[in-house]
């Protein structure tokens, strides 16, 4: 299947988010082999040069490792993956905070609300 890209971010960045998301969710595990650049490009319907860039960035980020002649694998460095999870958490909180601020809610008001929901056992 092809995927829909949002208009506000570079496509390579959205693909990095997608792959790291799959790792965080556990759909792709440490040590798993990723499809080849071309296979992945065909699967999601993007340019092979874009996909090449995605793989290069993931490797620079320490999320993947390329083994000569064997392909690209998700790192088994659990410290790095834990760090990735933290970065993602921070990113989510950051965007949430700027959202609520732009609407004029205070952090305290929101924290109180989250706690109330948690105590009330709402979903």
């Amino acid at each position, binding site marked *: 299947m*092809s995927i829909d*890209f949002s*208009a*506000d*971010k*570079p*496509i*390579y960045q959205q693909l990095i988010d997608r792959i790291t998301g799959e790792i965080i969710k556990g759909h792709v595990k440490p040590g798993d082999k990723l499809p080849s650049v*071309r296979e992945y*490009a*065909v699967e*999601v*319907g*993007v*340019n*092979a*040069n*874009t996909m090449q860039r995605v793989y290069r960035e993931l490797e620079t980020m320490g999320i993947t490792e390329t083994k000569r002649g064997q392909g690209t694998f998700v790192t088994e460095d659990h410290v790095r993956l834990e760090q990735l999870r933290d970065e993602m958490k921070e990113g989510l909180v950051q965007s949430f905070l700027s959202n609520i601020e732009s609407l004029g809610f205070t952090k305290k008001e929101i924290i109180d609300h989250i706690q109330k929901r948690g105590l009330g056992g709402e979903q």
Partner: protein
Amino acid sequence: MIRLERITKTYGGKKALNSVDLTLDKGKMIGLVGENGSGKTTLMKVIAGLITPSGGKAEVDGIPVTRKIASKIAFMPDIDLFYPYFTVDELFRFYESQYEDFNYDKANIVAQFLNVDRNSQLKKLSKGNRGRAKMAATFGREADYYLLDEPFSGFDPMVRSDIIKGMIQFTDPSQTVFLSTHEIREAEPLLDEIVLLSGGQIVAHKELEAIREQDGMDAVAWMTKIIKEGESVGK
């Protein structure tokens, strides 16, 4: 590399192309966009050697473009061409007889990838499958340049998606694809660069990821903005 310098094409006093300068690098997927009548097909045909420009210079890998350039360029026109009584296989054999770079096995692999039955007559295929067959014949050629005029037009989303995947699967980093399209939103993830033609002139030529990174918008918004600015300047 394809290089155009001050290419002009006049039809009865009207300029279909007006001093077009354009360089297309190797190994890129490049989209040609613009409103109807902006000169897209004329530009493609000039590069393919099918139209002689009224002025300017056109070169492919340093060789001046003539009708013979067809040996380097695989051009896929926008029309539903071909001999309707041909089977897909006969179409491939015909291509094989016409083009030295045609690889019959590759054409069959592309056809298989796109789920086209080789033994069906073209006239008995659906429009979508005829489009797939045309694509398989074009990409059966091992050309350095593929010029595709409106490869998605008139097809349903399934066929468009297949054609996109085929282009990614069956080109390698040394080959260049230059395609005209109105389906900008769908083509964007496929492309490295976009060329915007308006009134026979190139008004912009940019890398797509740079549009997103620098202008913070996608190709459709970018194109709309440039055309609007052009109109307000023209007034």
